[in-house]
């Protein structure tokens, strides 16, 4: 147990990978069969015949990245569609004041960079590895060949892009119309106790649900409130250090 917990994370992912793809050995060899199995499992290529899967397999290439590595840069021409095979990728933007806003968390089987690849534009956001990740990528031109030969893929693409639009619209609403930070401030005021009685503890997920926003928005709001000096984060405690400032941000007058 003790020995296990000191394993570097990269090895743990390798252990997981070995389970996911039986052909994955010694960090070097990827197995064609396992790759086809992976392709089959992703929504993009669901419903494809074996010959379709085989032709997709020819175009797919693999890329590995370590924690913190940027795998796509915002503003660069969108040339590849990416799928996460193992690990987690975050899609994010950096605001003019240097703050990172995570737009999406991409887990195994999911894709990213879809929208600009199809619109022929530039990468709309950057993407970074949150730990050791393995990606499968396909070039835009090759994907177009697959779509022409297998119209089923086009139907899948429509569905995936629609979901993407829905998610982005919900984020955009919050970014532009309402002030999430103000709502987080109000929620904190309502929930704050004096540290004596038992108060329900809240996860960022629950806070997001309470104020009707995406989980991705809450973390940044909390950071903003801390920078404004209204609260202090002490590990798993959010300490309201300046209730007046918090009330002001929340737009509460009394």
């Amino acid at each position: 147990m003790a020995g296990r917990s000191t394993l570097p994370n990269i090895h743990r992912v390798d252990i997981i990978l070995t389970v996911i793809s039986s052909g994955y050995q010694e960090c070097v060899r990827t197995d064609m069969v396992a790759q086809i199995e992976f392709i089959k499992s992703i929504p993009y290529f669901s419903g494809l015949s074996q010959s379709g899967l085989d032709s997709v397999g020819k175009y797919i290439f693999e890329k590995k990245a370590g924690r913190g590595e940027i795998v796509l840069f915002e503003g660069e021409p969108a040339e590849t569609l990416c799928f996460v095979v193992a690990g987690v990728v975050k899609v994010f933007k950096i605001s003019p004041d240097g703050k990172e806003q995570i737009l999406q968390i991409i887990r195994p089987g999911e894709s990213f960079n879809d929208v600009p690849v199809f619109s022929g534009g530039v990468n709309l956001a950057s993407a970074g590895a949150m730990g050791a990740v393995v990606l499968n990528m396909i070039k835009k031109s090759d994907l177009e060949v697959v779509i022409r030969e297998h119209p089923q893929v086009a139907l899948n693409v429509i569905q995936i892009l629609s979901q993407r639009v829905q998610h982005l619209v919900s984020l955009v609403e919050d970014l532009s119309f309402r002030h999430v930070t103000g709502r987080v401030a109000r929620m904190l005021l309502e929930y704050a106790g004096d540290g004596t009685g038992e108060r329900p503890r809240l996860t960022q997920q629950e806070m997001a649900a309470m104020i009707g926003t995406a989980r991705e928005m809450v973390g940044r709001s909390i950071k903003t409130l801390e920078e404004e000096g209204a609260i202090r984060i002490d590990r798993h405690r959010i300490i309201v250090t300046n209730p007046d400032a918090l009330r002001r941000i929340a737009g509460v007058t009394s």
Partner: protein
Amino acid sequence: MMEMPLIDRDKCQGCGLCVSVCICGGLVLTDNIVTAVEVEECHWCTLCELVCPTGAISCPFEIIIEKNQDSA
């Protein structure tokens, strides 16, 4: 005692995503379920909660009003 993120063993699928993003080394996959061992390095970054596909791991916050001057 060092508090660690809470794990709902029934919801955990053992996918290991939380382990792959955690930098504290406090999350360990054992028998296909994640367990948390107490480590100083966990600074409640909540990344494990963020990436978990099933909501099995969570990092809840206590929200407290600081008492003025006297012992907080």
